[in-house]
């Protein structure tokens, strides 16, 4: 691998890690779309920072974007709490308004300079190795590495410092408040971290990929594990995997790397969704079918109970409206468990079958969890 490739992959992995860390909490708190909103609404903050300093220096932009992130959260909350709009509508009116202000600022006041909207929206991680910074006369390497690395440190610090509080307020806000944690404070801390993460990732990967990295790997991890710590770790891992896969995919097609990474994240989610051992579609379908089969067997047993004479198979078919094949399957299953016996007269329930009915209604039907 060449140097530039390594830089691109490293930036991608750093972005993926910090997004996965804060995104896990967004997904758990059902605030995924607040992340989407923040990622767009920071634009006027960036534009203002740019207009005031006249440069693309990282720090003013982070400050400007961070401020706008907090403004977004505040406005959404205020609208929502005034009970004039529902939460989804509050998000839906706030972020386009802020984004519109950002676009107008950019096109009116910064049109001569290089801050274009395309870049903001879907960034270009491929240029990351070219934009280097220097200090004290020495070249310190790609700026994106420093920015995204610093972002990751901020997010790590937040989660390590506030782990207990974040966990408590995400799963049981009422209990957290009763124990004296302030859900509001934790909420704003998390949202500030989201804003910082978004802006740190902005230039290199763009707004849309930030959303993909914030939401998709944590959602996939949510389908695979049950513990918060495991979910964060797995989300980071899946995010990095998506970066690697997406990079290869984009290079093979000679297409946008950011788009490729988002697509790869989508593929990983679909895989988790289908094949997750506990929550996957395959397991769910199998579980539903097993349940339906068990229900059929129990219905038949119930029908046979307290019946003196054996019941012909034809009568079973008519009674339940089943096909001959289905009757055969249900009967074969019950026979193999010795719950019914069959002779030329038809079906009869065994003592074991009658006993099994006593517990039929009380045993847990579904796999819990």
């Amino acid at each position, binding site marked *: 691998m060449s140097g530039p490739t390594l830089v691109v992959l490293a930036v991608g992995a750093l972005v993926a890690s910090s997004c996965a860390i804060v995104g896990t909490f967004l*997904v758990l708190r*059902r*605030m*995924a*779309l607040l992340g*989407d909103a923040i990622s*767009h609404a920071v634009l006027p903050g960036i534009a203002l920072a740019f207009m005031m300093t006249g440069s693309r220096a990282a720090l003013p932009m982070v400050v400007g974007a961070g401020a706008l992130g907090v403004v977004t959260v505040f406005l959404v909350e205020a*609208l929502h709490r*005034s009970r*004039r*709009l*529902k939460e*989804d*509508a509050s*998000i*839906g*009116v706030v972020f*386009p*308004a802020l*984004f*519109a*202000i950002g*676009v*107008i600022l950019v*096109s*009116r006041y910064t049109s001569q300079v290089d801050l274009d*909207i*395309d870049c903001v*929206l*879907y960034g270009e991680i491929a240029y990351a190795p070219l934009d280097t910074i220097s200090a004290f006369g020495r070249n310190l390497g790609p700026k994106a590495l420093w920015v995204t690395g610093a972002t990751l440190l901020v997010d790590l610090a937040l989660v390590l410092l506030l782990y207990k509080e974040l966990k408590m307020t995400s799963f049981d806000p009422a209990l957290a408040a009763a124990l004296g944690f302030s859900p509001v404070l934790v909420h704003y801390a998390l949202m500030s971290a989201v804003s910082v993460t978004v802006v740190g990732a902005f230039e290199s990967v763009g707004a*849309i*990929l930030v*959303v*993909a990295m*914030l*939401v*998709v790997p*944590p*959602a996939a991890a*949510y*389908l695979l594990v049950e513990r918060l710590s495991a979910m964060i770790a797995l989300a980071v891992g899946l995010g990095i995997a998506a970066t690697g896969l997406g990079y290869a995919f*984009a290079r093979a*097609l*000679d*297409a*946008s790397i*950011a*788009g*490729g*990474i*988002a*697509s790869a*994240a*989508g593929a990983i*989610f679909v895989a988790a*969704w289908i094949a997750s051992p506990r*929550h*996957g*579609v395959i397991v*769910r379908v199998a579980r539903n079918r097993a349940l339906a089969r068990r229900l059929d067997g129990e219905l038949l047993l119930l029908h046979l109970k307290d019946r003196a004479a054996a019941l012909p198979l034809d009568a079973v078919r008519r009674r339940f409206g089943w096909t001959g094949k289905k009757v055969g399957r249900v009967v074969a299953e019950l026979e193999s468990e010795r719950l019914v016996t069959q002779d030329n007269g038809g079906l009869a329930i065994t003592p074991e079958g009658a006993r099994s009915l006593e517990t039929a209604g009380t045993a847990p039907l579904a796999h819990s969890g």
Partner: protein
Amino acid sequence: MTEGGIVISYTLWNVLAGSTILGVTGGVLGCFTLLRRQSLLGDALAHAALPGVCVAFLLTGSKSPLPLLLGALAAGVAGSLLILSIVRWSRVKEDSAIGIILSVFFGLGIVLLTRIQQLPGGNQSGLDKFLFGQAASLVASDLAVMGTLSLAVLAAVVLLFKEWKLLAFDRTFGASLGYPMRGLEIGLTCLLVVVVVVGLQTVGVVLMVATLVTPAAAARQWTDRLSVMTVLSGAIGGISGASGAIASGLVSHLPTGPTIVLVASAMLVVSLLFAPNRGLLWAALRERRFTARIRRENLLKDVYLFGERGGGRFEFVSRPALMGERGLGGAEIERHSLPLLRAGLLERFGDALRLTPAGLVEAERLVRKHRLWEVYLTRRLELPPDHVHRDAEAMEHALSEAAVDDLDEMLGFPEVDPHGRRIPRREKAET
């Protein structure tokens, strides 16, 4: 010069027509998404349309609007169905599902778009305008397509108004009446996709959601009737579309889409503040007036209680004594007493206050409410007497005269409250 003028006005006319059509249609349909709490579905559909546009271009090689719109429509429908199935078939919640579809579809679209730009002639494909919207690039044939689609959407809303109203407010009731709610839902989502696709070219991916949500949110503040809201929302959308287009035509470097959104947002802010009933300004004023009344009534009652403790001789009470009662400052007592002095309920001597005869009647009315409520709470709800004071403090300001009389009668005209203090009787106050 004149020729330039004609060209500009031709463009402006197209932009104006396109923006207005979009504003009206988005506003009308947005009402249903707003009420169904699916405001952000429009956002997801706008993003999801991109890969459809690209695939349609790759398949047909044409830039004419119809195939591109059909591609976007197919991708939008696929995206919305995927959101529904993720929510239904996994434990991932709706917000995450929307976020996933939005970003992954858009990512795919970007991959395809960059791929197309590598193709010979792909650079001129003009697909970018679907991303950020370029109202100025609208031509007559685009307008024809937009107009036809919008008319179809509006006609569908008129025809299925009753059914979609049921879908928005009481889905189960609709199902029990035998309406195919699932089909109606899918139909509504398809129309949403149509509007999104119509809007992409004018306002772009990101701002599309605002043309749906913002006018509807503004209209919602003025009325509780869906029919009125729909018309109003269409009007607000149309006005913001038209004025945004004109403003951006007159001022250079003022992009159309963002201007439309800002006009609509401004109308939303006005609606939130000033709409009758729901307006936040009126609510704040109402609350202020109520707080002021509570303060006045409390002061009147405090002066009364001093007299009562002094054996029923309602003499002047000094300000420091009143300050001790609720921990108020002297300036606050002064401020709260001013309206009472003006109304002739209190009179003053230096900084001391005394009830006038009218003030005594008013104070007894308040104390009666307070004490009757305390009796009610201890007798009927069997609360211990030391738990009822705070609740009565709130209720004395809220109970109406008629309710108090009923309460009095229901309790059998009690003489004293749970703390053994006399309940003022109206007859006595009048003599």
